[in-house]
């Protein structure tokens, strides 16, 4: 005898009454949910299992869990997973409006498992919307120093356009100083070179502990400097980068060389040695995430680092300098410079004592990633994922799904739903919990995006929503959707790096593979289909470094990320990143006699 609960209010009415349902007593879990001392686990599952109620859709389930987690002030991901299995009709008809404020729900749908866990861990902490900026100087040899020429540059808050900090502006002299420090730290016999591999891992784990300690502050600072919603910085960026750092902290004592099956009376083996002084240049879209993506594998392999944080977003990197010092890394192992590309970045790249350069940014690591939606896909889910694939992080992702290919049979429905979804996207103050989209990074980017929107309008594609700046303060742009886009158009070929979705129509598999691959880029791609064969065949055919099937932006630390073609060289994250930060040395020793 099940009581069907169709809405959340009905559920809470039941809870409030704490009363009989159809003559039966409510199961104890419901009563417990009011209290503070509750066996956290499985209460809601019990409820669903209890034959007393059934829940009509996942929205209600998630809402329940959300309420529950608020009550408990803590939440375990197991509950959610259990609930999904207890409620298999999940996600058929999600009412997006109702779910708007459920960040972990989004996170789950988006496949960010770590994120989902983090998002559900607790309500967002209260933070200062104008966080105090502690570190504005360069970090060389574990010391904070002014630029050699004493110059500074302004850092802008993109949601207001106001100057929020003046940061030391590194140029060639500072680069020389940082490289010298890194080179000294890398000398044979130095503390860093003599350190046991597992001790390197310990230092890295310690740094992860400190990032965890300061997570709320760092998320606020990131949001302040970059404009991304605080909710995202706190629930996505920080947990993710801490996970990546811990992942690489496990590597130092596992980077094995090989003993070779060579011929002759020789003993031959390989050692995987650090490359040396590594120069790293990172962009502004995921400032601290990319800082860790670069630094973590470099340190795991025993290199020393000179990293240039982006001049738009230097603040979290410079704060992390303090944490690196606190964790106990020897001086010179990590040196952090802030400055522009031509001067500071250029000097790093040209420096003869820098053994390797790793760069993330425009032209070298970009994308125009195809997202292919077949007509057998779960339409609701594909619309939500595709929306996320493009609009996440204000559309400022190198792997953004910026060419949405939709099969003709579902094309009209897909376009209509995507437009509805984009219209609902909440644009505004990054510190508002409801905000999904903050400002673009700066004036220049905003102007470029608006110009490309203009190009789209002129090219004959249909502008169905958005297309304009929001307000006159900060760099906000409306979520924008173009349909009937054709492959040759500028908006189908250029990386826009903004909240502008391009929807293209296709008919057949062969056609879409060819069109998807017809790009200079090859960073990422995705496929939505329920068909196993199609999923595998198309993913094999796509020329891209990451292919996601029925999901997007899955950034697990164990998976490699990087581009085919002009989207880049090498891979970040995962074991493959270790290859980028080690040299292979072959040692051959003459011996008296070799047997198998």
């Amino acid at each position: 005898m099940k009581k069907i609960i169709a809405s959340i209010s009905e559920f809470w009415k039941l809870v409030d009454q704490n009363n009989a349902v159809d003559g039966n007593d409510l199961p104890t879990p419901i009563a417990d949910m009011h209290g503070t001392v509750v066996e956290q686990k499985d209460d809601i599952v019990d409820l669903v299992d209890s034959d007393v109620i059934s829940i009509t859709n996942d929205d209600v389930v998630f809402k329940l869990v959300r309420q529950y987690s608020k009550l408990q002030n803590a939440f375990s991901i197991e509950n959610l997973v259990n609930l999904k299995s207890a409620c298999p009709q999940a996600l058929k008809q999600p009412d997006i409006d109702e779910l708007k404020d459920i960040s972990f729900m989004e996170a789950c749908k988006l496949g960010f498992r770590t994120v989902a866990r983090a998002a559900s861990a607790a309500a967002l902490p209260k933070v200062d919307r104008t966080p105090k900026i502690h570190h504005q100087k360069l970090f060389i040899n574990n010391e904070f120093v002014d630029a050699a020429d004493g110059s500074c540059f302004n850092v802008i808050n993109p949601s207001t356009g106001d100057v929020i900090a003046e940061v030391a502006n590194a140029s060639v002299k500072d680069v020389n100083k940082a490289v010298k420090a890194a080179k000294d730290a890398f000398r044979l016999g130095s503390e860093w070179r003599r350190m046991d591999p597992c001790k390197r891992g310990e230092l890295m784990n310690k740094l992860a502990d400190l990032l965890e300690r300061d997570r709320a502050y760092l998320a606020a600072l990131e949001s302040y400097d970059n404009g991304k919603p605080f909710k995202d910085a706190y629930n996505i960026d920080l947990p993710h980068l801490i996970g990546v750092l811990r992942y690489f902290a496990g590597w130092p004592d596992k980077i094995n060389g090989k003993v070779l099956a060579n011929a002759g009376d020789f003993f031959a083996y390989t050692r995987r040695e650090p490359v040396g002084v590594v120069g790293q240049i990172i962009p502004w879209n995921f400032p601290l995430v990319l800082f860790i993506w670069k630094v973590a594998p470099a340190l795991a392999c025993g290199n020393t680092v000179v990293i240039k944080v982006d001049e738009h977003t230097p603040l979290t990197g410079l704060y992390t300098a303090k944490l690196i010092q606190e964790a106990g890394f020897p001086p010179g192992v990590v040196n952090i410079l802030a400055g522009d590309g031509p001067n500071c970045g250029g000097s790093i790249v040209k420096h003869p004592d820098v053994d390797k350069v790793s760069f993330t940014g425009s032209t070298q690591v970009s994308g125009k990633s195809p997202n292919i939606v077949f007509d057998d896909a779960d339409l609701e889910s594909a619309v939500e994922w595709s929306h996320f694939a493009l609009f996440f992080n204000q559309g400022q992702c190198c792997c953004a799904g910026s060419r949405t290919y939709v099969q003709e049979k579902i094309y009209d429905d897909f376009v209509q739903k995507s437009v509805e979804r984009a219209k609902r996207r909440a644009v505004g103050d990054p510190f508002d919990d409801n905000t999904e989209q903050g400002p673009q990074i700066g004036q220049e980017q905003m102007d470029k995006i608006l110009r490309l929107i203009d190009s789209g309008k002129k090219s004959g594609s249909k502008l169905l929503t958005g297309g304009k700046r929001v307000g006159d303060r900060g760099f906000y742009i409306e979520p924008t959707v173009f349909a009937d886009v054709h492959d040759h158009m500028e908006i189908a070929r250029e990386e826009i790096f903004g909240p502008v979705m391009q929807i293209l129509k296709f008919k057949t598999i062969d056609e879409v593979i060819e069109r998807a691959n017809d790009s200079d880029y090859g960073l990422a791609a995705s496929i939505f289909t329920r068909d196993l064969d199609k999923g595998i065949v198309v993913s094999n055919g796509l020329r891209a470094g990451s292919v996601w099937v029925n999901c997007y932006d899955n950034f697990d630390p164990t998976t490699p990320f990087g581009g085919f073609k002009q989207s880049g060289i090498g891979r970040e994250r995962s074991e493959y990143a270790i290859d980028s930060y080690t040299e292979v040395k072959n040692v051959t020793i003459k011996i008296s006699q070799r047997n198998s």
Partner: protein
Amino acid sequence: MKSRVWEMLSWFLGYSELRRLKIFINNEWHKATKGKTFAVINPSTGEEICQVEEGTKADVDKAVEAARNAFKTNSEWRKMEPAARGVLMRQFATLLRRDVDYLAKLETLNNGKPLEDSKGDIAISADCIDYYAGWVDKIAGETLPSAPDTFLYTRHEPIGVCGQIIPWNYPILMMAWKFGPALACGNTIVLKPAEETPLTALYCGSLIKEAGFPPGVVNIVPGDGPECGHSIVVHEGIDKVAFTGSVEVGRKVQEVAGNSNLKRVSLELGGKSPLIVCEDADIDYAAELAHRAIFANAAQSCCAGSRTFVHEKIYDKFISKSVELATKRVVGDPFDTKTQQGPQINNSQFKKIMNYIESGKKQGAKLECGGERVGKNGFFIQPTVFSNVKDDMEIATDEIFGPVMSIFKFHDYDEVLKRANETTFGLAAGVITKDVTRAFKFVNELLAGSVWVNDYDAITNQSPFGGYKQSGHGRELGSYGLREYYEVKTVAIKLV
């Protein structure tokens, strides 16, 4: 010594609470189903420390059921993200370090090893758990090259419920070696600590719980070999058994496992490991190393360097240096900071070793020093050195597991290689030489799972450890240690 031990004992009983002397199943403490207990002895005095609940078949059944439940598809443990397993493991390592003082005293009380050695064991145990915590998200399957219309890949999946039976010589460390890879791969565990030394393992049960492992992931059942150990080895609900101990018991384990559900078996057994000192060795360095190789841990190490082969040109000098070191070795109260060697583990080991010393004398080896019991209480034996040992003597072929150094003379490198390899064991070997060509000749031709050059006991968490021949099956530690704890599933998908 007695008063100090009594002080320790009362402190232990006060601190530990009696529940920790029970059986640890499902993160709870259970009394033995049969209601029996057994005495745990302090080897320094021969006196009883306490009684511990004795696990028998019924308790093993209960533990296996808990482990099976914890391993069910969709259990908390099975669904846990790899990185989250790593977090739990690192937390466990942190707790080991937090409680190092207590655990070390407990280990020394129960096992008799010097307190500083116990502390060292716990530190490297924590490091071992940390090392494997780093593996959790790196145990990767592979995708395989295949015909274009097939998609092939492998998954590395946990084996399931692992029975682990560990010895008394390194109680905590052997537990860490077993737990590390098993947990990293996502298995669940039924551990039987040695009946001589169950105390630290049981205390670790409470740390496992405190670290936050789900119930049933780790279960600890103290008991003896014939009943409790046998119940594990024969159990149909256990998918793999790992055993460290004697060859005799290892052979039974493999037999019984084969006759039950053909569970996977890994064995780390005994040794009679050669250490070869070449003519170009620095004699002082070599004698120090050879002394440590045999006498460390009261010579109760499976990889003890128990056959010391010395080149004839330096033989006499080497012996006098070795005798000097053995005579200087401080034997006594393991809680005394000056002590280098505590007691042997129990009376039967003590007697066995004294018999071998007698046998050595009778068969014509030259007793250079030692050979006697120390004191009247406990199981202490003088560091003993035999020279002029011949390959066919009992002390040259049998694993003594006691503080008895046997020195052999050799004059030719091919000869000594042959003699070194003429044993049923193959756990470890060492060679001391400065000559690079000779070193690699030994490295390549010695039949042993670990070969140490100009070093001994060079065991690190990255280095696989295990035996050739009758010294065992499989490897512990390093990435190789993981292989004993996962099944490989091949998945082929035909694209039609």
